[in-house]
C-alpha cells in the first residue's frame, strides 16, 4: 500500500516527466512536438537543461534523446533523463540520478506538400520504464510504467509554423492518467536560406490535466532558437503558468530551458 506522501511524489514525478519530455519537440517550436521528422528532427542527438521552480521543490532535468529515422515516415528513439530534486520541505534531502527510460516511436499518417509549405500529421506511441531509483524520497524514478499515445500535426510554411499536439498518458498501477495538449506558433526573424542561419521565435501554450484529481495547468511558453548551420541548433525558453489548479501548496512558479540539438548522422 503506497503512502499518501509517496503518491504525491509520484504525481509530481509524472508531471515533471511530462514537462521534461516536452523539450523533445522534434524541431521548432521548443515546447511542442512537430510532425516533420527531417534534418535536425531525426538522426540527431539532443539535450537541454531545464530548471523547474515549484513552491515546494526545485528540479533540474538534463535529458538526452536520440531519435533515429527508420525511413521517411517512421522514427524510433530513446530519452534518458538525469534529474536533481531539491525539496524545500524541512527534513527532506535532495536526490539525483538517472530517471526512467522512455522509448518512443512515431509514424507519419499524412503529408500534403506544396511549394514552400507542408501539412503533416503523425501518431506517437511511447513507453516509460521504471529504470530510475524510486526507493528514496524524493525519487528520481517513478516505479511505474507509463504508456503514452498521441497525435501531432503541423502546417509549416517559409513564413510561419503552426503546430498542435495532444497526448494521453496511462499510468500502469492505477494512478491517475493525464492528458497533455500543446499548441505553438513559430516565426523566422531572418530570411530563409540554405545552408541555414536562422533566428526563430516561438510561442507555445502547453497544458496538462489530470481529470481524476481535478488537477490542471496551462503554460505560456515563449522561446528563441538560433540555427547556425546544417547540424547545430541552440534554443532557450521559459514556461510561465497562466492558470493552475489542484496543485495545493506545490504550484509551479516557472520553468527555464536552455538546450541544443546536434545532428550526428
Amino acid at each position, binding site marked *: 500500500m503506497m503512502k499518501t506522501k509517496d503518491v504525491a511524489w509520484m504525481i509530481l514525478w509524472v508531471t515533471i516527466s511530462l514537462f521534461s519530455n516536452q523539450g523533445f519537440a522534434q524541431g521548432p517550436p521548443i515546447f511542442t512536438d512537430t510532425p*516533420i521528422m*527531417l534534418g535536425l528532427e531525426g538522426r540527431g542527438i539532443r539535450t537541454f537543461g531545464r530548471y523547474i521552480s515549484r513552491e515546494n521543490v526545485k528540479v533540474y532535468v538534463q535529458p538526452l534523446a536520440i531519435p533515429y529515422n527508420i525511413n*521517411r515516415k517512421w522514427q524510433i528513439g530513446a530519452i534518458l533523463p538525469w534529474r536533481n530534486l531539491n525539496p524545500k520541505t524541512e527534513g527532506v534531502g535532495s536526490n539525483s540520478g538517472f530517471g526512467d527510460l522512455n522509448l518512443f516511436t512515431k509514424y507519419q499518417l499524412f503529408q500534403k506538400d506544396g511549394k*514552400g509549405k507542408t501539412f503533416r500529421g503523425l501518431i506517437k506511441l511511447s513507453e516509460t520504464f521504471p529504470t530510475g531509483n524510486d526507493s528514496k524520497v524524493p525519487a528520481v524514478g517513478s516505479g511505474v510504467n507509463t504508456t503514452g499515445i498521441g497525435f501531432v500535426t503541423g502546417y509549416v510554411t517559409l513564413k510561419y509554423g503552426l503546430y498542435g499536439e495532444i497526448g494521453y498518458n496511462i499510468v500502469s498501477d492505477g494512478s491517475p492518467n493525464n492528458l497533455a495538449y500543446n499548441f505553438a506558433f513559430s516565426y523566422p526573424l531572418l530570411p*530563409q536560406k*540554405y545552408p*541555414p542561419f536562422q533566428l526563430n521565435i516561438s510561442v507555445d501554450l502547453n497544458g496538462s490535466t489530470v481529470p481524476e484529481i481535478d488537477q490542471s495547468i496551462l503554460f505560456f511558453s515563449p522561446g528563441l532558437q538560433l540555427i547556425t548551420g546544417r547540424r547545430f541548433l541552440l534554443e532557450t525558453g521559459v514556461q510561465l503558468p497562466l492558470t493552475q489548479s489542484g496543485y495545493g501548496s506545490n504550484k509551479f512558479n516557472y520553468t527555464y530551458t536552455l538546450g541544443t540539438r546536434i545532428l550526428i548522422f
Partner: protein
Amino acid sequence: MKNILKINTALILAFLVVSFSQAQDGNNSQQIKVEVDGLSCPFCAYGLEKKLMEIEGITKVEISVEKGEALLSLDGETEVDPERVKAEVKKAGFTPREVTFITSKS
C-alpha cells in the same frame, strides 16, 4: 635547326589541339534542376542534400528553399536517371515535381 623548329611547331600544335579539346569539354556543363514541394524549413533540407549527393554522377547540390528547388551539378561522365532523382527526393521526405536537364555554356 630545322628539326628543332619542326619539333617546336609540333609541340605548339599538340598544345593547341589539347587546349581546344579541353575548352570544348568545359563549354558544356550539365545540371539538373528538380522542383521540390514541402521545403518549408531550411533546417530540414539537410536530409535532401545528403540523399541527392548519394546519386552517382552528382558532384554538387545547391538548395534554394525560397524557389523550392535543388540544382544538381553533374560530373559529365555518368548518366543520371531523373526517376532516381525523384526517388531520392521522396526518400528524403519531400515531394518531387519536375526534373529538368540544363546544359549551359561557360
